[in-house]
């Protein structure tokens, strides 16, 4: 039962990704503005432009271009970036780890912050709830873009608590063998680098985390208060378990599944938010690269980036579906 529904979901995910590929391809082909002309500037002769168009395959009909691109994807080839003159897959491989690390840290911050405030709110039961709800109302309303800019001003410029841009201090030559600087520095025990990388990540990660934390607080707090009314909690209470252990242990275990089901889509919003947040902090991930790619009309790079974002979104949704199913005792044993 569970396996067949998962296979169905995986097939749907593939269809969705194909839809994403078709739409981005169509969008870019109706776009005015010749990427080749932008690339070589005004002085170029008509023959130069024609030969470059042929080089990038842009002289072919729509459908042929699309088939060539699809066949390339299946071979792990996304073409060559027009503005950076480099293999798109190579560029993505270079930049993706930075974005993944940022997103993972942001998610962790959101879950820890959101989880602890929700537990605290349930534990206080009414006392201080007004303050939590008011703060949460602001967190729910204000998006990552505005948080990021506010942090630039307050934490970056006024307090100078964190570096304003980049991923690591440019004077450090870290010699990393993978693109995962943070994880590699931890696993190789170079904690001075870890500190520097985390300091660079602090503001973008917090900006991305706050909206997700807000939704976790709202939904988890409701789920926890509901779970606290259940018989098994009453039983544990009669047995003399402490209130905090009741919440963080018994109630939490049953509230996590429904919370995940309702907050799932917000995790994908966090990934989408990296586009503008990375731009604000000049963080060298795929998000900041995406804006430049659009401005430069770099068709192969835009296509590759949208496909990677789409694949990430769809994979996260699938993972959340699986996690929700695994956390639901009725489905697990059914």
């Amino acid at each position, binding site marked *: 039962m569970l396996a067949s529904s998962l296979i169905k979901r995986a097939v749907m995910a593939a269809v969705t990704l194909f839809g994403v590929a078709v739409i981005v391809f169509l969008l870019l082909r109706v776009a*005015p503005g010749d990427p080749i002309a932008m690339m070589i500037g005004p002085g170029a002769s008509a023959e130069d432009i024609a030969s470059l168009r042929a080089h990038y395959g842009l002289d072919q009909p729509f459908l042929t271009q699309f088939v060539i691109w699809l066949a390339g994807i299946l071979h792990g080839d996304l073409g060559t970036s027009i503005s950076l003159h480099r293999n798109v897959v190579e560029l993505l491989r270079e930049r993706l780890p930075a974005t993944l690390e940022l997103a993972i840290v942001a998610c962790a911050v959101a879950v820890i912050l959101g989880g602890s405030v929700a537990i605290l709110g349930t534990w206080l039961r009414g006392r201080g709830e007004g303050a939590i709800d008011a703060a949460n109302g602001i967190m729910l*309303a204000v998006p990552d873009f*505005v948080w990021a800019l506010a942090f630039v*001003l307050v934490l970056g410029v006024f307090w100078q608590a964190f570096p304003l841009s980049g991923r690591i201090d440019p004077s450090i030559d870290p010699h990393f063998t993978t693109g995962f600087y943070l994880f590699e520095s931890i696993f190789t025990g170079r904690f001075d680098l870890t500190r520097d990388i985390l300091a660079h990540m602090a503001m973008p990660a917090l900006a991305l985390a706050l*909206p997700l934390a807000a939704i976790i607080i709202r*939904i988890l707090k409701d789920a926890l208060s509901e779970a606290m009314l259940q018989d098994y909690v009453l039983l544990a209470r009669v047995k003399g378990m402490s209130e905090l252990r009741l919440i963080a242990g018994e109630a939490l275990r049953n509230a996590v599944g429904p919370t995940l089901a309702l907050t799932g889509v917000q995790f994908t919003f966090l990934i989408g938010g990296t586009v503008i947040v990375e731009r604000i902090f000049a963080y060298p991930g795929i998000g900041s690269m995406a804006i430049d790619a659009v401005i430069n*009309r770099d068709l192969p790079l835009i296509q590759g980036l949208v496909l990677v974002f789409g694949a990430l*979104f769809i994979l996260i949704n699938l993972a959340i579906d699986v996690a929700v199913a695994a956390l639901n005792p009725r489905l697990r044993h059914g």
Partner: protein
Amino acid sequence: MAEVALNHDAAVAAGPPKLRRRSALRALLAQPKVVFAGGFIVLLILLALFAPVIAPHDPLDQDLLSGTLPPAGFAGAQPGYWLGTDDLGRDVLSRLIYGTRVALTVAFVAAFAAALLGTVLGLFAGFYGGAVDAIVSRLVEIWMAFPPVLLSILIVAIMGSGVRSVIVAIAIIDWTRFARVVRAETMAQAKADYVVAARVLGFGRLAILFREILPNVAPVLLALVTLEMGIAVIVEAILSFVGLSVSSDTPTWGGMIAQGRQIIYQAWWVFAAPLAALFATVLAFNQLGDGLRRALDPVMQR
């Protein structure tokens, strides 16, 4: 973003719409959120409409001799420049006031356009089900696999910058928010007794959809549109920030933020003022939307 938990209950809020109209108005005014946030938005609308009368200076007037003056109360401030000036000597307060024009135009038009597109698709998907529903649902799923900021930048880059492109981009991207909620609402309403009754009485399908179901979906829709206005203000600011919204001689909050970012160490107020305006505006639209939802949803009133 807040609609995740919002709208499920309203399905129960059936009942003929006309009877509830008067009590709805009273319920609205009883919500402090609606009064305060709504009041703030009315104030913004007045600022936008009467910008030439209210603004103390011409927002484009450059005066290099009075560049980067700090806001009133700080050392070196000059009278008449309440929020200081930027590096070109332009009055920040006047630019902020004129900036409400683009922000609110985009907020109202784009939110309405997204709502129209999403509501029509959501109504049909929820009411007819079957193939219509399958197509709309699949489209929603594909759309939600695009990073919205990237997609909006892409659309504006394709259409060329300008307010019109920004509005089209927001409508094309955010219709899914409406389609998802309206579809679910419509499915719930379609099973309600009054719809079954209308069907038995021989009303046509379109008549049932637009005369019976739509009015009952309206309260939820109104709250969603208000939330969307806040989102539209942000998207416009993002596009101005990236340099893709309107031309640089029209003052926008996003454009001011981008400009202020360049001179943040010399004149932080050029950055801080539009940021504060953005913060307050998105918060106001959000609180208004939340207040409207509470006021118009009988289940939540209890």
